[in-house]
């Protein structure tokens, strides 16, 4: 959690950053239009959503059974499952596995849970070099930043910036080479990362899905970096929140049919890969060790409560893409791993802090997120519930509390209400009032102040 600054400061900086605004503008049309086109092409999209919700709700209602089955299947195929209560336990477990493998380099597929537990810094302080292999994550890593979007981590970076970063970081290349097109950047990243894949001792990936039936984990990528991360090194570690669990491969297919369409408008990601245990018998390649690190980190607290539906989230990013607030300020303003509407729920619930408590208020509750969420997560309802919690905990300060109390009292008394309005109407025309009253000053930063209608004005 970025505690060095407040949400307000970060949002202000984002609004004033022309490069970020340009990048956000490009992304907005791309994601929204493509998703819409993909959804239109699939008549059964809404039926799939209903089915996916049934599957997830069923798993969450029978978690011990399915987790147990999953673990048995992983072990039966030669893998190991590690149950980690919190970020600290997960980091230590992963370090332990890496140290036992004498790992010097770790190839990483994109994992938001990895960001959630701040894994890279931890590995680095213990002398292990993590290399991000997703192009966006790689860019973010060499810039020493954090991802700003859960699907497109480098959304906030323009291709011009990326070219400059590559020139600064890949010093052994011809300085006069062209890096004008995305294809040039991809080709360069590929050649840099190819060596990293080949020499990595451990591969760490996330999981879009955990399949209880077979003990498999599944990832989706567009670059194939997840596959190379998990197949080439001797050790494959899967790091995932336990809520990624589904009962069967059939169920996994339902989720997959929603995931890429909701995220980027693709019918499927370029690579969809299932891993089941380490290499077996006659396999010519594949890791010798297969570990699944299952993380709780506050997720189980959501079970049985008013935020349980948040555990349905398949991390598609549709809510971010369609959120007008995210579109205006980007992901870093949210201060932690998960931005946009899903982040405004996950951050206060998994990583509470007074700054996190601001996030649910930074929304008009327009409801577009819930409209596009493939899992129909009632995000506005949850944001409102978090506001109620913040209020009940005394996090809403004066003079707002007093204003609300006064308002609800005045509106019940007809005469008082009319007197208040009779006073406010002319006051709203006075320059002194407009200049001094804080909400009016806030309004006038960007807009003209409307003046009340004069009675009988024609």
């Amino acid at each position, binding site marked *: 959690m970025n505690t060095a600054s407040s949400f*307000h400061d970060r*949002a*202000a900086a984002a*609004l004033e950053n022309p490069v970020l605004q340009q990048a956000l503008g490009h992304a907005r049309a791309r994601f929204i239009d493509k998703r819409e086109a993909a959804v239109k092409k699939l008549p059964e999209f809404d039926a799939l959503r209903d089915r996916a919700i049934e599957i997830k709700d069923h798993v969450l209602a029978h978690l011990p059974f399915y987790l147990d089955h999953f673990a048995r299947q992983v072990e039966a195929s030669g893998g190991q499952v590690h149950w980690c209560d919190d970020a600290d336990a997960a980091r230590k477990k992963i370090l332990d596995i890496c140290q036992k493998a004498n790992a010097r380099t770790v190839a990483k597929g994109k994992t938001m849970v990895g960001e959630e537990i701040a894994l890279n810094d931890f590995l680095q302080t213990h002398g292990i070099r993590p290399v991000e292999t997703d192009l966006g994550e790689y860019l973010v890593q060499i810039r020493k930043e954090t991802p700003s979007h859960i699907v497109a981590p480098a959304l906030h970076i323009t291709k011009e910036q990326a070219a400059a970063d590559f020139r600064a970081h890949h010093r052994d290349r011809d300085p006069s080479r062209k890096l004008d097109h995305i294809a040039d950047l991809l080709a360069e990243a590929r050649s840099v990362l190819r060596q990293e894949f080949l020499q990595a001792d451990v591969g760490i990936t996330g999981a879009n899905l955990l399949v209880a039936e077979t003990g498999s984990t599944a990832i989706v990528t567009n670059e194939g970096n997840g596959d190379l991360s998990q197949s080439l090194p001797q050790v494959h570690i899967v790091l995932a929140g336990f809520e990624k669990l589904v009962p069967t491969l059939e169920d996994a297919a339902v989720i997959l049919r929603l995931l890429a369409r909701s995220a980027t408008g693709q019918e499927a990601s370029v690579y969809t890969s299932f891993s089941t245990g380490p290499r077996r018998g006659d396999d010519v390649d594949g890791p010798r060790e297969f570990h699944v690190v299952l993380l709780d980190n506050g997720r189980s607290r959501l079970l049985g409560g008013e935020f349980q539906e948040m555990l349905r989230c398949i991390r598609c990013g549709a809510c971010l893409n369609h959120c*007008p*607030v995210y579109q*205006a*300020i980007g992901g870093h303003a949210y201060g932690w791993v998960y931005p946009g509407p899903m982040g405004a729920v996950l951050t206060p619930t998994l990583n509470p802090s007074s700054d996190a408590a601001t996030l649910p*208020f*930074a*929304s*008009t*509750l*327009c*409801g*577009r997120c*819930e*409209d596009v969420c493939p899992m129909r997560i009632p995000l506005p*309802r949850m944001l*409102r519930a978090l*506001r*109620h*919690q*913040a*209020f*009940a905990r005394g996090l*809403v300060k004066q003079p*707002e*509390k007093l204003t*609300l*109390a006064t*308002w*609800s009292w005045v*509106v*019940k*008394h*007809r005469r008082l*209400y009319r007197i208040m*309005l009779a006073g*406010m*109407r002319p006051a709203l*025309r006075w*320059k002194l009032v*407009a200049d001094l009253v*804080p*909400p009016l000053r*806030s*309004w006038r*930063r*960007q*807009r*003209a*102040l*409307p*003046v*009340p*209608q004069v*009675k009988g*004005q*024609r």
Partner: protein
Amino acid sequence: MGPGGEMDRPGPRIALLRTCLVDLYRPSVAEAAGILLQRVGCLVTPVAAPACCGQPNYNSGDANGATKTAKQLIAALEPYDYVVVPAGSCAGMIRVHYPNLLADDGEWRHRAGDIAKKTFELTQFLTEIKPLPRTTGSWSGSVAYHDSCSCLRELGLKKAPRDLLCRIDGIDLRDIPDAESCCGFGGAFTVKFPDISGAMAQRKTGAIADTGAETLTSTDLGCLLHLAGKLRRDGQKVAVRHIAEILAGMMDIAPIETSEDEGRS
């Protein structure tokens, strides 16, 4: 006297919830709503108190304050056949959120449910319950219609307000591109996060300018005040009016004014 020979049967009794923004900023909206409801044969009584549905408290986290207001308003509305509101957000509060707010509250759960069923946003009422007759005056000029998020998502109203506008002779109705995007008002949000709100308004006013429309209208005065302020700050000449005023043919009323209009200091 009601239309179509219904002299012996009194029309439905409507409680008109004027809304606080209308009371403060633009009473002609309530006047227009009253005219329209009478035109379809209703007996209209403005709700005296409480004057607010409790949404500001509800959305700011003050569930207790909202609950108290909600209970008082429900009691005040119960004697009427219907409740009509010239605003999607307040109608949505009653229809969608009152039952949630009072879900655990014994008898109030049912009372909230009953009130929710008989509460309608104005254009919704004039389409589903008491359809407005075909000819409703005339209008000259182009009008861009803005969908409020509560109308779109809480009330499912997209076609009805447009249909009502299209029935007006001479009207040139324009669609605003990217209509599903929020304008950035959001009640208290607009003054708590003014710069984000302003950025969202900028996108919306840019889209409105793209329509070339002379007038902007909507079901929700909050959106309209916010957008009028942004349009005027940007030097745009679009006239901003509430849909009730256009449907009632109130062309002689001045559009929403701001302190930065030409000729003002």
